[in-house]
């Protein structure tokens, strides 16, 4: 049925020279969509149009309703009201991702949804079969799976358990799963946030090819540069409503931020951080001596000073994550990390040592390592500082509450009641609570593993502000980031990792977008 509709439009040839985005027939029309979760109105009145053969980007802050829209289109949630038309016909209510896929809608989510113990090939074709009958013969599975995944990563290990792959490759498997279904509509919901730069560029190449072939792509990303690169049109949503749709070329960063936040005042791209002068002290707090992240790797030497903002960067899986964990007390392959806080030198042998030395670590995997999903906001905040609130072994809740309120104000944490479940907050706000948890321990060194991943611009700025404040009070802040722009705006220094070694150290003033990314790839024009 779908094919007939598409062939029909081929009869009237589309002029490829005019702006494709403006001329294509509307494949998906969403009108006045609304959806509430309990008291939270996630979508109020959202309307979008996705045309044939275009990349439409949806931009909005975290609680703006993007995820809800995507989940409705992928069959995870049902809307309260509003209509959805697919190819001109009303779309029946979708009750499962399976139904959405049957209608030609395939989605790649931000979460990496691979089945870790099953082989890569199984993961690519996951869900494509019936309960007892295979829809795709095995030889075809292998051939198609190889072709599609090889477009994204080199030498795809089809028989390896998906869980043994690096994060970026696992997400590539999820992308491949959507691609082998040859959808009419491909939804990428923050799907690029876990891809390394090389894989993302390859994905963009695939997207361009699909677009030329008539596939419609709904592309959601918090990275402005990705949107600028790939999107034909950008629909801006705010508080569950669409506020504007911009054509390619109209959509510059300034304008998009303005529309997303709705205030001129917040329109400056990213908060500037005060100069390092006067802030960075002479006092070395962490001494990294001869640390090796892999057996054959060159030893890493580095000194981190009090009050310093240090970025840690590189292509996904090139050792920067490992390095941060080493600073958090996970023993390296060789060498040692000495913490010089409190006027005494202490070699880190375990995460407990690091904690005792005043090193706090905010992990990357928020759900897995960070929050306690079944506990309240306050409980999530207090776990690291419980001892401080005790008297005679009893916890005084009022002390905790006062401290939480102080941090909530400082970090602009907007919550319902603090005894609500942490999961009632948006991802960005959860992240703020996590950072507040560790800041409340008055650390000497604060390690953050990609804290702004999948977080909206407003929240990012709040986080930057807090980190800059902490630094100016003498905390050494070491942050792994996958966003080049925030490294440039925020950091005094950036340590670039490549192939498990410290590849280059760039100081403020030395780094530009191009320079940093080039050094990720080992391309350093001196």
């Amino acid at each position: 049925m779908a094919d007939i509709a598409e062939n029909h439009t081929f009869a009237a040839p589309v002029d490829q020279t005019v702006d494709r985005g403006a001329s294509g027939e509307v494949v998906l029309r969403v009108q006045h969509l609304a959806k509430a979760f309990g008291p939270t109105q996630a979508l109020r009145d959202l309307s979008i149009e996705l045309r044939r053969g275009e990349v439409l980007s949806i931009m909005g802050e975290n609680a703006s309703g993007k995820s809800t829209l995507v989940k409705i289109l992928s069959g995870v949630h049902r809307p309260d009201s509003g209509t959805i038309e697919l190819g001109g016909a009303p779309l029946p209510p979708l009750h499962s991702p399976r139904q959405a896929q049957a209608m030609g809608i395939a989605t790649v989510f931000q979460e990496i949804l691979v089945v870790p113990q099953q082989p890569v090939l199984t993961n690519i074709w996951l869900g494509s079969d019936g309960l007892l009958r295979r829809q795709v013969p095995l030889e075809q599975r292998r051939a198609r799976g190889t072709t599609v995944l090889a477009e994204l990563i080199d030498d795809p290990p089809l028989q390896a358990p998906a869980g043994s792959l690096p994060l970026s490759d696992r997400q590539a498997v999820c992308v491949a799963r959507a691609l082998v279904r040859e959808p009419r509509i491909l939804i990428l919901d923050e799907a690029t946030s876990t891809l390394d730069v090389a894989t993302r560029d390859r994905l963009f190449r695939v997207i361009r090819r699909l677009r030329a072939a008539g596939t419609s792509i709904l592309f959601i990303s918090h990275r402005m540069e990705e949107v600028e690169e790939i999107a034909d049109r950008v629909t801006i949503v705010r508080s569950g409503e669409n506020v504007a749709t911009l054509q390619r070329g109209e959509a510059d960063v300034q304008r998009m931020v303005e529309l997303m936040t709705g205030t001129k005042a917040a329109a400056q791209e990213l908060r500037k951080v005060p100069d390092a002068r006067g802030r960075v002290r002479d006092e070395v707090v962490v001494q990294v001596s001869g640390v090796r992240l892999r057996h054959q790797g060159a030893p890493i030497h580095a000194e981190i000073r009090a009050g310093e903002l240090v970025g840690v960067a590189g292509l996904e899986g090139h050792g920067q994550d490992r390095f941060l964990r080493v600073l958090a007390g996970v023993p390296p392959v060789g060498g040692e990390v000495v913490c010089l806080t409190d006027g005494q030198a202490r070699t880190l042998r375990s995460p407990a040592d690091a904690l005792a030395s005043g090193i706090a670590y905010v992990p990357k995997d928020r759900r897995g390592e960070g929050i306690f999903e079944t506990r309240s906001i306050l409980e999530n905040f207090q776990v690291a500082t419980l001892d401080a609130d005790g008297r005679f072994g009893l916890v005084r809740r009022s002390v905790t509450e006062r401290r939480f309120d102080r941090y909530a104000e400082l970090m602009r944490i907007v919550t319902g009641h603090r005894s609500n479940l942490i999961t009632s907050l948006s991802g960005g706000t959860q992240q703020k609570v996590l950072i507040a948890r560790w800041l409340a321990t008055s650390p000497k060194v604060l390690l953050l593993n990609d804290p702004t991943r999948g977080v909206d611009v407003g929240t990012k700025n709040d986080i930057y502000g807090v980190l800059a404040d902490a630094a100016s009070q003498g905390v050494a802040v070491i942050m792994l980031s996958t966003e080049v722009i925030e490294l440039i705006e925020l950091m005094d220094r950036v340590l670039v990792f490549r192939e498990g070694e410290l590849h280059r150290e760039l100081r403020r003033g030395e780094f530009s977008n191009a320079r940093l990314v080039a050094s990720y790839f080992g391309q350093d024009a001196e």
Partner: protein
Amino acid sequence: MTGTSTLSRLVGRPSAFCLTLLVLLVVINFIVQPSFAAPGQIAPTLGDLAPFALAGMASTPAILAGGGGIDLSVAPLMGFTNILLVTRLLGTPLGKPLAAVPILVAIGACVGLINGVMVTKLRIPPVIATLGTYFVLSGVDLGLVPNPVTAPPNWTNNVAGSIGPIPGALLIVGLPLLLWLGLRRTPFVEALLAVGDHDAAAFSAGMNIDAVRIAAYALGGAIAGVGGIALTGLVASADSQVFGDYVLVALAAVALGGTNMAGGRGGMMLSVIGAGCVFMLENLLTDLHASAYFIQVAYGGVLLVAILLGSRLFTRRAVST
């Protein structure tokens, strides 16, 4: 994956540890009691083993399906089908194998289906849902036969003994096992393992999680129905108490076999090996005239040590990061 030697791949297999233990136990059994392997003994010994093996197999799919999946009602369901067979079917036209077996398997599958629906659609935690079924079935069992009823000689005697030259146990355990091996060639087992490993991923990929889990419980129930037949052959009576021996031992067999109790990894073949270990251990201790109390202690100890060692050996293949 590259450069892994065949040996380490074998050691890394989940079945390796349990299989080694089984071989060891068989050898020790043979040394302690040489008549153990006498030609006339093999069929009855396997007949003793069959209900263990089937109880372990029946418990496996629910566990593989993950989400805290477990089926505690397998043993009383075996008791229930045993009682139905002896008191209702045998001696009637429906008592013939070709009628009785499908009926009992279907009844087992229905009970499993109910468990599955309770767990998925009604969202009752599996332990509670199947514990409820456990109590209901054991009550019904007791109501049907307050005292054991001896069965007249019938075809199930061959199941515990020999059918021609073939030990009947091989058939009654082998056929469900063949069914499982057949299912492994379909997408079902793949789906079962995927759902058990990461249900959110499976759901987003378009799998019907509930259908897979319900099917898992139904499959377990169907095999419990077969287990009831094996039990009938062994005890030659309708007995509302005898299933008690199999309740926890079935789960021990699954765990010992190397199936991941959290789901996503394992299989029925492993449970049969695990059941073999449990059975051989009991056999050995009985031969050594150990007290019943000590046998219980030994079960527990071996189980814990095995899980510990098994998981250690398995970590080399474990998923990284």
